[in-house]
């Protein structure tokens, strides 16, 4: 849960370059604020920060572990009032911004993203969605499923259903229903979440294993074809539920089954709002 100090980047080149790019945008008036990270009270972790004043922008820090997805703050009224804003992103974060545009929650011109690629440890040139999309499309979704990312999913798929059930029953029963996963996710923006609809209650609100399993199942399902694997949910979870295993499994499934990957085309279709006549029919008797 805690981000160790070694994840705090910023003293090096990337942080300085990021600050220069952000300063240029802010000083030049292209944006009214910069959403980034700063060191917390004891310089032990990174916390999100909104900079409106160029003089406050020292070295910027970049969360290299999944951590928080800053896009979640783009729905905050205080931030919306300052659009356009610059926002420091990693690829999963930027793709989630694209999904927000796809779903009509944001306009492309509201944000000037700065994209950090941890694989190459570089800040990419460009600060608009249009400039950054080609790079995203060149590397994703392939990167989501390479280099051992699918290990946990594949290992579970090799088990029997009974073994898988035992695994997920245990993992999901740890849930305390804090909804940190939901609040950390930029794509969970429903004004009233399904779990909070009580008349009638569709999901049991109690943190007993059945209620918690159902909650996590439904949340994963509601993100199918939308989740861009930024990892903020699992990072936020105080009881270490392996949410990314569920998300990655579904992301891989929709890619294989429907040739679909979210967050790469702001004008693209939504997976479950569209259909093709050729969609597979094997499930149906």
């Amino acid at each position, binding site marked *: 849960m805690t981000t160790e100090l070694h994840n705090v980047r910023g003293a090096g080149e990337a942080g300085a370059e990021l600050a220069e790019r952000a300063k240029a945008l802010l000083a030049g008036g292209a944006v009214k604020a910069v959403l980034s990270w700063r060191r917390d009270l004891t310089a032990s972790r990174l916390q999100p920060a909104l900079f409106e004043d160029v003089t406050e922008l020292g070295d910027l820090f970049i969360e290299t572990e999944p951590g928080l997805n800053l896009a979640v703050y783009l729905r905050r009224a205080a931030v919306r009032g300052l659009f356009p804003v610059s926002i420091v992103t990693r690829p999963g974060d930027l793709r989630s911004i694209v999904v927000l545009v796809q779903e009509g929650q944001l306009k492309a011109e509201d944000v000037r993203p700065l994209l950090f690629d941890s694989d190459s440890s570089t800040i990419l040139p460009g600060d608009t969605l249009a400039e950054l999309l080609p790079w995203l499309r060149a590397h994703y979704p392939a990167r989501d499923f390479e280099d051992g990312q699918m290990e946990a999913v594949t290992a579970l798929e090799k088990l*029997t*259903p009974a073994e898988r059930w035992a695994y997920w029953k245990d993992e999901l029963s740890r849930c305390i229903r804090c909804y940190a996963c939901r609040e950390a996710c930029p794509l969970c923006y429903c004004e009233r979440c399904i779990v909070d609809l009580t008349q009638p209650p569709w*999901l049991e609100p109690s943190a007993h294993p059945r209620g918690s399993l159902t909650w996590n199942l439904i949340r994963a399902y509601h993100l199918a074809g939308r989740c861009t694997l930024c990892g903020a949910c699992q990072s936020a979870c105080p009881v270490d539920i392996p949410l990314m295993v569920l998300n990655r499994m579904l992301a891989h499934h929709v890619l294989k089954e429907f040739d679909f990957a979210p967050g790469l085309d702001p004008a693209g279709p939504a997976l479950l*709002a569209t259909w093709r006549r050729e969609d597979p029919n094997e499930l149906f008797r």
Partner: protein
Amino acid sequence: MTSMAAPAERAPATPGTAQGFEPRLVAFVCTWCTYQAADLAGTTRLPYASNVRIVRVPCTGRLSAEMLLHAFTFGADGVLVSGCHPNDCHYASGNLAARRRWIVFARLLGFLGIPQERVRFAWVSASEGRKWADLVNAVVRDLQEVGPFTDYHHLQRRTAAL
């Protein structure tokens, strides 16, 4: 409401069934096709398992995953979703939207380890009364094999609390 005893936890076993376990099957069916088929099965006196409780909706496209889970929460051992064949939807494409939804949902349930016998999907048109009867019988038989869904129902009892 006539006076009657409180409903028992489980219906008594039908004589002759192998295990004595009578699964509870909830079927979500569309008004224009499968419900008509069920009607046809009835009017043509085709016998089929009475374990099924039919929930009629305008179109399979109206169904959401929460409804299926709701059925499980309230004691269903299995769920069946059935509607018009692709291209025959009364609302043009409701079933096609549903199809994609169910493919994804079924995959997720399978990944969690829920046996696929518990969530079944079919296209049954209005004239396919026999198909409906056969389908329900087959699904109920499969559910008798996998047994009651106590894995899910009883999860509530084992709280994570100390």
